[in-house]
């Protein structure tokens, strides 16, 4: 699944110091549950993103454990504090060991 996985994140470009901002993330991933069978009746092995984290300037915002019951193309929405200008770091961890990353800067003003 390491190919064709594309993260999308939505973060405001700027905020006032101390603002609360809404962050949305979406990543293209099949999230194969391990519950399905193929046409020959063989179980299709589980292949999911099992963890997602968001940090701001090295401090954690959210750390989410995903199970196979998370929908295809996992979506998350949450709120973060912005005490200062800096960078949001987003990381998705795949069952196959792949790690997908995205960063977004936010300015104060």
């Amino acid at each position, binding site marked *: 699944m390491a190919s064709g996985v*594309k993260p999308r994140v*939505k973060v405001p470009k700027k905020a006032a110091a101390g603002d609360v901002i809404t962050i*949305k993330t*979406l990543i293209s991933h099949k999230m194969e549950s391990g519950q399905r069978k193929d046409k020959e009746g063989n179980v299709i092995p589980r292949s999911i993103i099992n963890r997602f984290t968001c940090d701001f300037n090295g401090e954690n915002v959210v750390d989410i454990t995903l199970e196979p019951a998370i929908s295809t*193309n996992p979506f998350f929405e949450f709120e973060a504090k912005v005490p200062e200008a800096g960078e949001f770091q987003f990381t998705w961890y795949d069952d196959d060991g792949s790690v997908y990353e995205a960063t977004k800067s936010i300015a104060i003003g």
Partner: protein
Amino acid sequence: MKYVTGAALASLLTTSLAFADPVDDTLILNEETDMITRTAAPAHLSDTLDEVMSGWLFRGTETRAMQADDFDNPGMIFVEQAQDSWMIAEGTEGKSCSSCHNDMDSMAGVKATYPKWNEEAGEVRTLQMQMNNCRTERMGAEAWGYDKTPAINMEAALSAVSRGLPVNVAIDGPAQSAWELGKELYYTRTGQLELSCANCHEDSYGMMIRADHLSQGQINGFPVYRLKNTKLNGVHSRFKGCVRDTRAETYKPGSAEFVALELYVASRGNGLSVEGPSIRN
């Protein structure tokens, strides 16, 4: 008339599951673009319908909301993938789509007019056929399979830049014979269940079909991201699914019959906003 009656009845029978009338809601895309989800039926339908309605109005609250924001819309993942491939040169000529067409925004309005008569080829072409013509004739690249992932993603991307513009396919002139064929197919009963498109989508929209809402079967929202299979789906594939469910042998995606049917069904939605990629069940 039919709609007015249906709405009046539904207000009397709000708890009844027999009615699944379209909701009274407006679609504003990304809080800026007003979308036309219901409008007066085009002239050629005036004897049949008063109003044409997007399938968006027949969906649940959460599904409607998912389409109203590009970030919430998972179909846009695939639009972004196609935007990337728009820039990538392929084939013997070393050209990408952007070599001729520049930025994809320059294609705004194109989707709204397809399927469309091509004078040079002497045929009605869907957008996917035109894309493939570019690939084989101008780029020296292989044609994409009809409704296959690369083709449907690109069609969705081209649709995305036309969102908010009214569907406006031409049905007269040289396109008329294909349109007539499409109309005939629309009203022809198929399969062991002997159902035509019209039986469900013209005679019975606003009713429940098992636990689902029957829409007018408009295609202004195609390609659609379906919750059912979590990917983009083409209109020919959707036609195939419907015809199959009447227990008939179906035409193939890309066939002359489905091209004609696409033209006819698109023309039933003339005036509705282009919505693709939309979200449906």
